[in-house]
């Protein structure tokens, strides 16, 4: 499985990577902003995207629109703080698949993967 993690927080990316590796997932691409994420998305097979909402330069919503212009089916899961949950409806209108509230737990991450990607994790 190929996972793309997009978050301007290095700590959050590292925690997500650690969790995914513990689930046996080795093909993990990470991006600190939306522009890098788009380049990685175009250059690599990606089965699921986990993306922060509140990022500098390109917001999670703008990134979502760019991804949907390229691929309409890949699951895109927004990572939000509780305070941004109100934005989820707007994101759903633009094609977000699901959301994960920060701070996420390994169980929460695994549940989202199991829901959206055919996996044995």
């Amino acid at each position, binding site marked *: 499985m190929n996972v793309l993690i997009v978050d*301007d*927080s*290095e*700590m*959050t990316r*590292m*925690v997500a990577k*650690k969790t995914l590796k513990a689930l046996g997932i080795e093909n993990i691409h990470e991006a600190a902003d939306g522009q890098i994420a788009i380049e990685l998305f175009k250059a690599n097979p990606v089965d699921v995207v986990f993306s922060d909402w*509140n*990022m*500098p330069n390109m917001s999670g919503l703008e990134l979502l629109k760019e991804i949907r212009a390229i691929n309409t089916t890949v699951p895109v899961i927004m990572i*939000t*703080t*509780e*305070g*941004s*949950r*109100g934005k989820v409806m707007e994101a759903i209108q633009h094609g977000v698949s699901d959301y994960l509230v*920060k*701070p996420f*737990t390994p169980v929460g991450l695994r549940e989202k993967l199991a829901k959206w990607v055919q996996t044995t994790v």
Partner: protein
Amino acid sequence: MKTAASASLTSQIVNPVISATVDTFSMMLDSSITRTGLGLKRPDTSFYDITAIIGLSGKSAGSFCLSFPATTAYETVHRMLDMEVREITPLVCDTVGEFANVIAGSAKDKLASLELEMGLPNIVHGTGHNVEFPSNSQPMLATFDSEVGPFMLAFGFVERG
């Protein structure tokens, strides 16, 4: 009168902020926290070594600050990432910023009536720094102890319009 209204607003924010802090430390670090002080922030209050500042605005506007001594930040990185750090690196600053982001996001959810929008965290570090709040706000300071060490929160809000 405006200062009194701002003081009332800031005190209304205390419980949601503290509750969000308790939840965040429990979820992210599996750590309980103990409040060691709560009161008005004095103009000469020094913050700890690393402070994350987040602006919020909506029906009111203000700032939320989370400040860690370096040792608390190092232990937080150790617990989160199983990494030993002994200097203030971008990762250490990012970690304090992300904690502030999660606490402010959770508090914002509990203060839905204020319709706050949240900015990105800015980080200040250095010994003995201070953060100024608007003169018509009455910022509050809360100090805590935790399994990763002491830390403090400061926040001040003013009504808009």
